[in-house]
């Protein structure tokens, strides 16, 4: 394998066959192929239609509540500066996508896909979910537009994310617990793909992250890019200039790519993705595909995956159900290989500490997923000068996680 070439722009992918360098592609059963091609054509047509853009913006404003604030985290910044060396300690901003309707960035993508499903005349929507945030967002928009909604969720996740299961049911969705394999997100995705193969004519598969076969990684990214695009003008308003670094947690990678992508060609902007190191990378019990995996093929694309020597997919582990996936979106794999984005990881313990730190210092209870980003942000910010401006993607609120955190801190509520 030759070293990947540095492209003229980091924002041109994927190519017409859905590849980011060697990653991505369309590794699906023939039954799905015509549907995937139909979806690609429908998405291209929607992108070119100003009416689609207008509709998307209108719902984003009035239903989701965009733009989300870009907020200067003054006390977190002070905290970092207390422990940093003289003149050190970056100025930290939070991109507050946890304030979106339904409590996470997931809704940005779901809104786009549901509007697309409506244009395609599909009335049955399926989705996979890990933490339940994507499931809740999908159930919400299906309720709003009167669409049938079936959400696949691993049985383990059904257990640890009960509030979200109840929410989805209140919203009229059917939640199907998946008993196969590790009973988490990857198995939910297998089940959703099996449903799609079976009901391919009537059904729209609303994937929750930048994974799956082409065109999903590109399409979901495009719908999430609103995060980074807002940061660009908001930072201009706040500071009269752009940010110096960006940092986000990575499960499949959708909140991260949404923040990163608009800045990929801004050479001076440092970009960090934080994977879940679970109980520690050396323990093998983690969900850090780039740090601890290798390239393979699963769920329709080639990307970094956790697997054994025979190519059997291994179980991921993270305290955060939303990061508990043995893969990562293919564009991240490519950005790692070409060196544009630095990928690091945070353990369960570090995330729990950051969860509490953010709650106490800023009065914002973050989800466990962005808590991974917060943990590494605090470390990285301590090594930067005071005029360095960093943005953390606070992509979800922690309401769904209070039971999990209470369990770890004091054995339950």
């Amino acid at each position, binding site marked *: 394998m030759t070293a990947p070439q540095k492209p003229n722009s980091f924002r041109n992918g994927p190519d017409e066959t859905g590849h980011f360098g060697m990653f991505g*592609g369309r*590794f699906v059963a023939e*039954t799905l192929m*015509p549907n995937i091609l139909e979806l690609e054509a429908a998405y291209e047509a929607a992108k070119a239609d100003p009416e689609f853009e207008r509709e998307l913006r209108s719902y984003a404003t009035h239903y989701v509540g965009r733009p989300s604030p870009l907020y200067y985290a003054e006390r977190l910044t002070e905290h970092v500066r207390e422990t940093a060396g003289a003149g050190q300690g970056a100025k930290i901003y939070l991109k507050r996508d946890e304030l979106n309707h339904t409590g996470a960035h997931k809704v940005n993508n779901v809104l786009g896909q549901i509007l697309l499903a409506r244009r395609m005349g599909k009335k049955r929507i399926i989705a996979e979910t890990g933490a339940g945030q994507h499931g809740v967002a999908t159930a919400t928009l299906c309720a709003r537009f009167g669409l049938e909604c079936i959400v696949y969720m691993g049985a383990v996740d059904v257990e640890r994310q009960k509030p979200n299961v109840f929410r989805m049911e209140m919203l009229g969705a059917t939640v199907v617990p998946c008993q*196969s394999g590790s009973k988490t997100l990857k198995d939910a995705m*297998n089940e959703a793909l099996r449903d799609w193969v079976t009901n*391919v*004519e009537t059904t729209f598969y609303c994937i929750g992250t930048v994974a799956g076969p082409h065109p999903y990684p590109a399409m979901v990214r495009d719908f999430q890019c609103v995060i980074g695009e807002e940061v660009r003008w908001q930072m201009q308003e706040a500071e009269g200039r752009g940010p110096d670094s960006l940092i986000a947690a990575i499960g499949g990678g959708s909140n991260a790519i949404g923040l990163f992508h608009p800045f990929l060609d801004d050479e001076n902007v440092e970009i960090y993705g934080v994977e879940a190191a679970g109980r520690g990378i050396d323990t093998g019990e983690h969900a850090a595909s780039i740090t601890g995996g290798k390239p*393979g093929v*699963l769920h329709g694309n080639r990307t970094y995956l956790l697997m054994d020597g025979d190519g059997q997919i291994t179980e991921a582990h993270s305290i955060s159900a939303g990061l508990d996936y043995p893969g990562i979106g293919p564009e991240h794999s490519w950005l790692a290989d070409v060196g544009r984005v630095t990928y690091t990881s945070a353990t369960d313990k570090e995330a729990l500490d950051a969860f509490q730190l953010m709650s106490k210092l800023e009065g914002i209870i973050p989800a466990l997923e962005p808590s991974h980003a917060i943990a590494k942000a605090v470390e990285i910010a301590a090594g930067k000068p005071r005029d360095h401006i960093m943005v953390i993607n606070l992509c979800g609120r922690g309401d769904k996680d209070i039971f999990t955190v209470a369990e770890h801190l004091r054995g339950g509520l």
Partner: protein
Amino acid sequence: MTARIDARFAKARAEGRAALVTYVMAGDPDPETALAVIRALPAAGADIIEVGLPFTDPMADGPAIQASGLRALKAGQDTAGTIDLVRRFRDGDAHTPIILMGYFNPIYQYGVERFLADAKAAGVDGLIVVDLPPEEDAELCLPALEAGLAFIRLATPTTDDKRLPAVLANTAGFVYYVSITGITGAATPDFGKVASAVERIKRHTDLPVVVGFGVKTGAHAAAIAQGADGVVVGTALVSALERSLVDGAAGPGTVEAVTGLVGELAAGVRSVAKG
């Protein structure tokens, strides 16, 4: 390249009948029992054998084949072991075509070139890889053809006349028509629709067309054999094997559980005289 496959279809045609294609999982419930099952298939009436390559995440398979793959993995089956299984089968049977069927990642990790060379040397005739549509031909299909292994493509109810030529372009050996939109072992197909789909495919190719997914009994096999050149049965056999297990391990009747059903299916196929 497809000599063994061609000969088998020619033989069935000479006998005025369709061929019976049987699927079992390598290594289920353990490597030795799986070998014994596969060795017993031709005498029971199987013309062609598909050997499943176990994978943790078989996205086109139903619960029976998922469970079968997990039993095999638990018993230590891996890709090298599956190739070895074929080699040992081939030592005693020079004529029955063997098709490996599975998903791409284990092959990709084994290394495409090495896999093709080892599979060919072991006596494998063809490959069916569910998650490699024509759009990904460069990954395995084209190298396989170059290495002298047939790449057998799945055509499905969603493969329309516009797409069929692309699906058939690099197909060799035979075409596998998936009778339903769905996963293995789910619904029983509408036999009338299957017959017209087979006719449609035959307008595009001279290759034999076999039909699988949802075939469970001799009567189903007979219904499919009316129009198709072959009938594929997988889930029903894997389920028969599962029912024969004692505490998850091979039981005294495991081989016979599979061969008994194969006998019934073979009789179903043979009950339909073809011109």
